[in-house]
């Protein structure tokens, strides 16, 4: 089963790209991994640990481990701050021209893996929630970074600990008004995990979770959800808020939503609002689909081309995925790449 050394180009240094590269290296296939940003890890590298008294299975630590693992390997060449400029050829004989700073590099690749990832939904599009206008309306990504780098929860406006915090689910997902007719599949789990982690670190903080439907994730989710439901400091309310107002005097945010218990519209005040933003395909990934002549799915993610094209799509850019499933999909993509290369030799 000896394979000839053939270049595999992996576009995107997030967890999916990293996993593909590591898996291929395990099978003895060297690859080149390119990443637009100065460091590897992509979106998931900014996530914080969401454990409470025990691990809540968010997989964020796995990303950090994989990043340090890939840096230790010498059979994977990593090029950061590198972008794809053009593509020639097809059917597994691709010539890809890359740009790293001012440098131009041409690369021959027998297989190209696109793991370009996604962008978090731009929350300012939901004007009614006031992201970008009110300091204390933040996205879950902002919260993740706050907890990861500062290890503490605080209100952006005054640096104080918020006593009440609310999560708005489905921001940018399952939303006809912005045309995103898909579930981002990760937000329920990450928001609840964040709530749990915050409640563990700051038992005095009360959390509210405004949602449509709770989407399960993984084998231990039931147990986790039950523990959320039993927690007196967490209110789970099936209702999506309609609008956020800011009261400048008390610096709190008033939220208008339908209370399903009372069957009427109510208002409640919170110190901090977290928008659980979904996933959208990034502009750069869209550009790649044009370069490689790929199609988009109905939901606006990249559709997988047939394997004989030598182009493989994996990770969240092929449809919303959490870290766990991204790793799994990347492994299966690595297998397809291997099969493709074997078929050609």
């Amino acid at each position, binding site marked *: 089963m000896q394979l000839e050394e053939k270049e595999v180009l992996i576009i995107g240094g997030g967890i999916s790209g990293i996993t593909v590269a590591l898996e291929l290296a395990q099978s003895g296939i060297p690859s080149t991994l390119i990443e637009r940003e100065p460091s590897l890890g992509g979106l998931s590298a900014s*996530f*914080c*640990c969401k*454990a409470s*008294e*025990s*691990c809540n*299975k968010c997989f*964020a*630590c796995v990303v*950090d*481990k994989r990043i*340090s693992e890939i840096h230790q390997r010498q059979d994977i060449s990593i090029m950061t701050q590198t972008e794809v400029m053009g593509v020639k050829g097809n059917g597994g004989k691709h010539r890809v021209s890359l740009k790293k700073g001012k440098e131009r590099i041409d690369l021959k690749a027998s297989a190209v893996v696109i793991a370009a990832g996604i962008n978090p939904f731009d929350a300012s599009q939901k004007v009614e929630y006031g992201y970008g206008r009110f300091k204390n309306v933040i996205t879950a990504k902002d919260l993740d970074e706050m907890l*990861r*780098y*500062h*290890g*503490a929860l605080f209100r952006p406006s005054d640096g104080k600990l918020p006593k009440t915090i609310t999560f708005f689910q489905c921001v940018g997902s399952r939303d006809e008004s912005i045309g995103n007719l898909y579930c981002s599949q990760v937000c329920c789990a990450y928001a609840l995990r964040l709530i749990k982690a915050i409640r563990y670190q700051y038992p005095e903080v009360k959390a509210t979770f405004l949602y449509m439907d709770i989407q399960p994730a993984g084998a*231990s989710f039931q147990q986790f959800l039950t523990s959320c439901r039993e927690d007196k400091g967490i209110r789970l309310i099936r209702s999506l808020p309609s609008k956020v107002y800011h009261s400048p005097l008390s610096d709190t945010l008033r939220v208008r939503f339908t209370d399903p218990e009372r069957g009427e519209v109510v208002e409640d005040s919170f110190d901090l609002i977290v928008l659980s933003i979904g996933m959208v395909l990034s502009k750069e990934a869209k550009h790649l689909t044009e370069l490689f002549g790929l199609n988009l799915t109905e939901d606006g993610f990249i559709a997988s081309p047939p394997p004989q094209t030598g182009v493989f799509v994996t990770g969240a850019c092929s449809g919303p995925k959490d870290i766990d499933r991204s790793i799994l999909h990347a492994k299966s993509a690595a297998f397809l790449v291997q099969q493709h290369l074997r078929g050609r030799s």
Partner: protein
Amino acid sequence: MSAFDPKIVAFCCDQSGYPAADMAGTLKLKLPKNVEIVRVPCAGRIETIYLLKALEKGADGVLVFACYEENCQFLRGNLRAKGRLSYAHRMLEKIGLEKERIEICHLATNSGAKWVETLRRKSEQLKKMGPNPGKL
């Protein structure tokens, strides 16, 4: 004589504590001066005797940085460490030493801030407690 600066031996699991320490360094967070970092492959490698020997040979406190429960690379190393700590705690109580001198802290690779925070807190706590009277 200068103010009492407690010496802490920090056992760091290579799967969480040690990378967290590296991350703390990268974030340029500041650590109490007198901390000895011991790198172990897994908290399950830390024997009870190391905890006691650390105190006996001059440490004022011991911290074990282990992975969160259900997140051990080796499945149960963190639980074994927890069990061994409870043995050490029992012994310390019986010989009249504060059991708070030995503590376990669960964290993950990406918990640099928590790592430093825990050590700072421990250092303050030990300052109040005073030097370990059991050290030789």
